[in-house]
């Protein structure tokens, strides 16, 4: 079987889905290949735009502030590339901020229509609380994850509530870490409590996963039982807020949040957590729904296969599925295959490689990395604000978001790249992962669409 498309998007995480939805919205016949689970589905569901400047240790008050810093100091950062236009140099910063604002606002509206309301914007970073009790700056979170007035109201009291047999959240240690952090920053709350609930979702009392609890709470009756149990402890410590692991449901999360407030009298919210992540999956599903609703063709379980680029134009891509191979003829392609988790970039003792087109790779500082041993791109310190340059390696692109294969020579005139397959930013350290994915997905898509329209015309 063969398919025809205007735009083929390779990769079904945030960058690919944003590119796919945008292209479809622009009237393009769009086919998107998703190989497996994306890094977006593993994410906490919080949408970081920029939390720290590269190498920085001061949390940024707002993404706008960070983008302005990047505009002046890191022109090759994916956000910095947004400023490569014909306009006057003094408008670079403004151009970047506006492009990011456009893409982020568009995403917020798109997810709202998929019933995933987001809270926040690029004019301020939010303090999100994690299952460890730590606090991290992020741009937007799902409404259910917003802690409300917890850290603003001087009289607030938080109850950290876990579930017996669910090991991914320890309410006692989270409460302790959070309280110590707030005290050292002279911020409320001054009082926190913790409790482990006996919930036994579907009769299980050990080895419980967040997915299981979320499914269980998608039923109204089960939520009322939870509310009743929580209420006792809310009253015991006089809690104004309830911090829960992110398990409030796949379909009813927002309704459940509001219902808990009604039934317990306290404001309940979900903490940021680690994979498997219910909010990450909600995000993934919301984006896929939007893509399909817009008319896109989603091929799950398919990866792209290409012989290395022979001409400077991509005309056909083979989609390899479990039982079939599809040949897709296309006018443009967006490569959004992710980094090492997604498999877009791989590393062996012989070097760092791009996995679909075998494109040239570079390190975080844009040195050619095609024959660099991965270890050479790491630091001796496991966790630091600098991170490991290995996770900033990937593809180098031109201002059109086309991967380049040498000194400013693009690999193909209709091949664009977006998301974490790109080099030049270190998302775990900067807290910029989904933000870069959204903005570069948005821009790569726009350029691909412009190219197709130009070609068609």
């Amino acid at each position, binding site marked *: 079987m063969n398919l025809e498309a205007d735009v083929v998007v390779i990769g079904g995480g945030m960058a690919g889905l944003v590119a796919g939805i945008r292209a479809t919205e622009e009237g393009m016949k769009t086919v998107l290949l998703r190989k497996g689970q994306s*890094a977006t589905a*593993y*994410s906490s569901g*919080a949408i*970081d735009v920029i939390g*720290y400047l590269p190498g920085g*240790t001061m*949390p940024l008050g707002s993404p706008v502030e960070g983008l302005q810093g990047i505009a002046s100091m890191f022109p090759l950062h994916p956000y910095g590339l947004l400023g490569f236009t014909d306009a006057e140099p003094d408008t670079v910063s403004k151009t970047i901020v506006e492009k990011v604002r456009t893409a982020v606002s568009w995403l917020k509206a798109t997810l709202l229509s998929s019933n995933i309301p987001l809270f926040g914007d690029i004019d301020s970073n939010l303090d999100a609380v*994690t*299952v*460890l*009790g*730590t*606090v*991290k700056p992020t741009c937007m979170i799902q409404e259910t994850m917003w802690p409300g007035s917890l850290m603003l109201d001087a009289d607030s009291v938080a109850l950290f509530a876990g579930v*017996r*047999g669910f*090991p*991914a959240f*320890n309410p*006692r*240690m989270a409460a*302790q*870490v*959070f309280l*110590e*952090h707030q005290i*050292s920053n002279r911020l409320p709350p001054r009082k926190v409590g913790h409790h482990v609930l006996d919930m036994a979702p579907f009769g299980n*009392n*050990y*080895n419980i996963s967040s997915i299981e609890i979320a499914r269980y709470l998608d039923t109204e009756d089960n939520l009322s039982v939870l509310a009743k149990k929580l209420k006792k402890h809310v009253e015991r410590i006089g809690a104004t807020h309830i911090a829960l692991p992110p398990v409030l449901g796949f379909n009813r999360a927002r309704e459940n949040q509001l219902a808990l407030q009604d039934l317990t009298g306290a404001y309940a919210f979900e903490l940021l957590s*680690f*994979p498997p992540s219910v909010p990450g999956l909600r995000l993934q599903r919301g984006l896929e729904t939007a893509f399909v609703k817009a008319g896109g063709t989603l091929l799950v379980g398919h990866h792209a296969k290409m012989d290395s680029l022979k001409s400077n134009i991509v005309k056909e891509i083979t989609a390899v599925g479990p039982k079939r191979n599809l040949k897709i003829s296309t006018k443009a392609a967006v490569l959004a295959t992710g*980094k*090492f*988790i997604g*498999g877009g970039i*791989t*590393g*062996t*003792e012989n070097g760092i490689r791009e996995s679909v087109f075998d494109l040239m790779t570079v390190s975080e500082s844009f040195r050619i990395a095609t024959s660099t*041993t*991965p*270890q050479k791109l*790491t*630091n*001796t*310190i*496991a*966790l630091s*604000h*600098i*991170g*490991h340059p*290995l996770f900033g390696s990937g593809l180098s692109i031109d201002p059109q978001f086309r991967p380049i294969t040498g000194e400013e020579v693009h690999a193909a005139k209709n091949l664009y790249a977006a998301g974490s397959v790109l080099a030049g930013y270190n*998302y*775990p*350290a900067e*807290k910029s*992962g989904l933000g870069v994915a959204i903005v570069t997905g948005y821009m790569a898509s726009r350029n691909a669409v412009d190219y197709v329209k130009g070609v068609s015309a």
Partner: protein
Amino acid sequence: MAKYDVVVIGAGSTGTAVARDCAMRGLKTLLLERDDIASATVGTCAGMISSGLKYMDEPNIVDMCSDEVVYFKRIARHIIAKNPILTPLLEMSDLSSGGNFAEEYSKRAETRDVPPVLFLTPEDSLKIEPMLNPDLIASLYFEEYFIDPFALCMLQALDAKQHSADIKTYCEVTDILTKNGSITGVQYFNRIADKMESVKTKAIINAAGPWAHKIAALAGAKLELRLNKGAHVILDRRVVNVGVIAKAIEGRMIYLFPHENTVLLGTTALDTWEDPDTLVASQDEIEYLLKSMEWVIPSIRDARIIRTMEGVRPLVPTWKIPEGDVTRGYEVIDHEPEGVSGLVSFTGGKLVMCRHMAEAATDLVCKNLGIETECKTHNMPLPGNSDDVDIMALAKEYGVSQHTVERMRARRGSETATILELTRDHPEWKTTICTCEPVIEAELRYAIRETFPQTLNDLRRRVRLGTGPCQGTFCTFKAAAILAEELELSGEEFQLDIADFLAERWKGKRQSIRGEQIAQEELAQGIYACVGNLDQAQEELDYDLKPWEEVL
């Protein structure tokens, strides 16, 4: 001030064996360890309690090794496994050394309950191990015993404790007190209590391994060591059915040994002058091992490399000969002739000899103290050795998978039932915390309460937490919370423990990072840096740079 008959310095395989022997003979014993039980040399070995196959030129050592294997089977059968080993021969010249070895090995095979060395045809060799290079002309087949080195040290320490020895981990010796040429006491820094402490003692047994010369110097005694480092590459899962021994690029022998859920590829042997705490495996060592093993296992590079480890052997100081020609025997050195009476040190030795070394040193100390006693360490079982464990019955009774119970048995022996019994009151403790191993919460709680871990790294040595392919990506924060609860740690201590554990895991992962392990690390960075924000918290926390870490 507390008074002891003997203070043992160093809780590796030898030190814990010495403490056990001394305590069993009724000496009032203190074991001091600057870090944790089995935290240095022994923790980086392959666990082979060798029949002495590498030292066929030293028949008395081969005899000793063979006897020691028999004793270990008697006292620690629950932490021992027998592995078949193939030595494929690719050329006729490989055969020359094989004959002598086969003869020496086979002489002592029966006492160890293993068959004599067999010569196998290529067809039979490939049936046993299909991954072998099909061009082999023959192979040697024999069997060796392996022990869990962490469990051995821990059980020796626990047994010493049960015989009234005091065990103090995180206590680093800072001075040895002498009067008129005789040992009178030891001063040490207690890192848990954060203060200097001292005790009186009549004798000191210096089992500090690669630091033994430094300990001796504190008493003004001279001790020379030939320090030699060795690297292992750790591969995920049993990528071979049996152990494989092969000739390395310069003719030394290296091996691929199944070990717990992994396979160990080792080892290098290089003289070293570096601080053992800072050592990591180098690119050259990793490639030397892969390249050398590739001749007999051509697909070796397809295996997922989990991490590497590097250890230091404190060899007997013989110079101007290759490392391989240095004796694998040990020396017990009484420093009395040089004017330091009461101090006894070790050089050399192997894991398999640790009990023998302890017996020799304890004999000497008892003689010096004028005490007549008899060594019983080769007859009395270590904790957990008592009964057979019925895996299937326990798995059924407690509703825990057979795999989980079997892995627990391999660490705990007959204590397995005691641990599972905890889940009657706490069914939620059946939750798997480390999925790679696996380890359930009940065993973690038990290990914390019974075996005095202070950190997650200590807990790793007790239960193999975080030693699988994910290297603690998914269990670190869960186990840290359990440890913090049990030890009543503060939030800051809890975060630091996570950071310290990840730092130690990274030390080994970093050197060989490639393939799937990069994706694994991206996930770990995503969890602990990106979401957890601990990379930034580290700036605020009181994080100490580790010896192998360099300022950014």
